[in-house]
């Protein structure tokens, strides 16, 4: 069967194509349109997926949308009614926003792709998350926990799933419904701390390490536990359910103090900056506590050793580490794209395995489903600018790049197919030596232009990971897609200063040789030169831009920032000395 999955209209639009139960292609729209977090109907992604599968739309057996638009509309309308009359400002905007396009998904898909309406299917949002987490994981039976801002109504679900021979099942047992949402809680603090919602949540997590959880009691006032082990938000502290303009209320400000003006930089040496860091630490602690207690109860209920975690909240690597240590689960599986982009794949998988009842297939355990690096393009681009470019066999290229890194050069690394999901896992990465604070500062200053409190991540070969990082049992799996934050062993922190966060942790990626063989070889070669087979690995993009896709995008990014060397496939390009000096 040929099934196309689509996510769109809120954030991270994406498309994914399954043929006979296995993925052929999956890509986020932003990587093709070059508009960060592009939520538009992903026509470019769909066209690329169909091209990659050599399919015409009429050859598709089904097109699956990742949520149920009418049910979502039901929630939007009901929330407006419940907030009456305070919702009078947001109501017209919400109606115009929804009635304009988002409600007519079946018609849009049918008309844009030319497929019959009967072929268009809908998978519930959290079922899409659950399928993306479970059906991509190498596990037979697992408990499921999904948490995000909101889907249709659900904001958190728990359940269990299994792959019995001939019958795959995903049973979500219980849900917590909007407006009671951990995702919205975290997003509210993200907005309060002056960061962009759906974008700045990483910053809250990074900032939390600089603070102490001194405001936990205050946070527990706004999110309270219920008798059945769930939680509820005290809506008096929030405005997100009544207006799209602001997510926290005046009462919230009374409790936590004035919000940060997004235009003011955070000065962590000032009392105000420390207050914001403490605030971040407090909400992070409460989020972790709730997740851990929920997962503990789920572990007791299911008795299963494995947990599949989905939804945007699963991107919180610090919480994932605590879940692994404290929930009782032996292994935790977080897919490379646990957010809405991954739902395109999840919805397609759900339709294939559950709706159509097709037999289970072993899912390839990697995130590389996007467009591949084109051969030759980089050389011709470099020739236009008379930059030195060389085509080298790996036996020469890898040692050469390892030497570049050992000599302190920053390398843009493009290899094979693009990753699905928000993290660069070795195919579209900026690599650098991980040893000094100066390197971290240089990356921040010349390339990423990020706040100084945000850490960079390391990548390490599987067999070397334990030497440098304190990994609990199951930690290696969680770190496969950079989904966990783990302590750097104290004796290595000084030598890994560029990737060690202020609290001594790192969001490590543990690399198996077959996932990205060339990067693996580079790590090993770099290890021979430097004594430490670890590299700093950050996504290949500049601030405000999506991760690069094609060679030309990588090349022009390389030209615009402080990257010294660019490698795309077998081609290595360097800047001229005078350019670097400039």
């Amino acid at each position: 069967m040929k099934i196309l999955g689509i996510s769109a209209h809120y954030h991270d639009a994406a498309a994914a194509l399954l043929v006979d139960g296995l993925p052929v292609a999956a890509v986020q729209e932003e990587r093709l349109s070059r508009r960060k977090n592009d939520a538009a109907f992903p026509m470019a992604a769909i066209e690329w997926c169909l091209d990659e599968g050599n399919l015409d739309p009429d050859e598709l057996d089904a097109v699956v949308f990742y949520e149920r638009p009418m049910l979502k509309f039901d929630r939007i309308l009901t929330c407006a009614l419940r907030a009456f009359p305070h919702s009078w400002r947001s109501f017209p905007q919400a109606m115009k926003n929804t009635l304009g396009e988002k409600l007519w998904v079946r018609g849009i898909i049918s008309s844009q792709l030319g497929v019959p309406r009967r072929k268009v299917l809908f998978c519930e949002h959290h079922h899409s998350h659950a399928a993306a987490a479970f059906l991509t994981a190498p596990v037979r039976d697992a408990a499921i926990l999904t948490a995000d801002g909101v889907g249709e109504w659900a904001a958190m679900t728990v359940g269990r799933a299994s792959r019995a021979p001939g019958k795959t099942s995903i049973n979500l047992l219980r849900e917590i419904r909007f407006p009671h949402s951990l995702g919205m809680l975290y997003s509210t603090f993200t907005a309060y701390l002056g960061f962009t919602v759906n974008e700045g949540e990483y910053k809250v997590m990074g900032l939390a390490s600089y603070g102490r959880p001194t405001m936990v009691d205050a946070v527990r006032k706004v999110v309270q536990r219920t008798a059945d082990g769930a939680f509820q938000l005290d809506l008096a502290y929030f405005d997100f359910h009544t207006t799209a303009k602001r997510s926290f209320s005046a009462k919230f400000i009374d409790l936590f103090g004035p919000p940060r003006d997004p235009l003011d930089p955070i000065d962590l040496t000032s009392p105000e900056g420390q207050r914001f860091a403490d605030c971040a630490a407090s909400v992070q602690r409460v989020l972790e506590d709730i997740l851990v207690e929920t997962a503990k109860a789920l572990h007791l209920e299911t008795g299963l050793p494995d947990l599949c975690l989905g939804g945007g909240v699963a991107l919180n690597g610090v919480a994932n580490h605590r879940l692994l240590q404290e929930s009782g689960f032996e292994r935790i599986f977080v897919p490379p794209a646990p957010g809405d982009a991954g739902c395109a794949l999840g919805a397609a998988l759900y339709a294939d395995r559950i709706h159509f009842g097709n037999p289970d297939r072993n899912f390839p355990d990697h995130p590389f489903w996007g467009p591949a690096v084109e051969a030759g393009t980089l050389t011709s681009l470099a020739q236009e600018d008379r930059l030195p470019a060389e085509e080298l066999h790996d036996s020469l290229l890898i040692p050469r790049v390892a030497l570049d890194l050992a000599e302190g050069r920053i390398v843009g690394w493009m290899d094979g197919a693009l990753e699905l999901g928000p993290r660069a896992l070795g195919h579209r990465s900026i690599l650098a030596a991980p040893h000094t604070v100066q390197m971290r500062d240089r990356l921040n200053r010349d390339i990423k232009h990020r706040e100084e409190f945000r850490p960079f991540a390391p990548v390490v070969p599987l067999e070397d990971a334990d030497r440098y990082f304190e990994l609990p049992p199951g930690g290696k799996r969680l770190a496969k897609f950079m989904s966990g934050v783990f302590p750097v062993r104290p004796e290595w922190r000084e030598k890994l200063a560029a990737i060690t966060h202020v609290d001594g942790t790192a969001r490590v990626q543990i690399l198996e040789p077959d996932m990205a063989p060339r990067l693996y070889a580079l790590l090993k070669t770099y290890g021979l030169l430097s004594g430490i087979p670890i590299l700093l690995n950050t996504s290949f993009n500049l601030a405000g831009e999506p991760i690069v896709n094609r060679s030309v995008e990588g090349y022009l990014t390389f030209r615009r920032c402080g990257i010294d060397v660019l490698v795309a496939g077998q081609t290595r390009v360097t800047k001229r000395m005078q350019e670097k000096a400039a």
Partner: protein
Amino acid sequence: MFLLLHRWIWRDPERCARKLFSFAETEADGGRDLVRAAELTQDPTLRRLFMVHAADEDRHAQLFRTRGSQLLRARPGRASPPLELNWVSPGERGLDDLHVHTETDAGLLAFLHLSEKAAAGHFATYVQALKGDPPTSQVFKEVLKDETFHMNYTLAQLIRVAPNGHGVILWQARLGRLWKAYLRLMSGIAGIMGAVMLTIQYFILLPPFAFLAKRAARREAPGWRQIPQDRASNMTSQF
């Protein structure tokens, strides 16, 4: 009169700072558009020029951001953000939509030429209006210098890539800008009309439903809710 209006707009340091930040965003967006144009063009000369232009836009963004930060740091107390009046004093491409991927090289050059020309006019006015604030005025002066280069190179390149039709393309771009302005105005009016209609409906039609919804909400127990096992099975339903 126009100058007086701008003097008034730029007089408030908080508003001035916020406008500079919004200009910085526009410039940064413009820079990204130009990088996209450089990615898409097959013409090496244009690629190089677009990259130079993009670097200028990034530098402008940095200039605006730095001056905005200086003004914010110098303000005496925290006030609520004032009205920015961006329609009255637009930034470089603040009121123009640019869809790089749908434009030909010639069409894009024409668009850039016209918007740089318009921006140069605006920025010259701001230089005049900001005479009482030399550091901010200096920022606009620096940006203005680059705008002249941008205007010139876009026109020269347009003539190069479309030696016979550049006049027509420029007129098409002018008409396109006019059409887009008309569409923006009309969709703005339609948006206001829609909002008024929906607000009237909200207060007239919704109260009884709101009463029922609130009552239902009160009856809802907090916490976990069981999910019916057949709920997900019907994938043809949008509900």
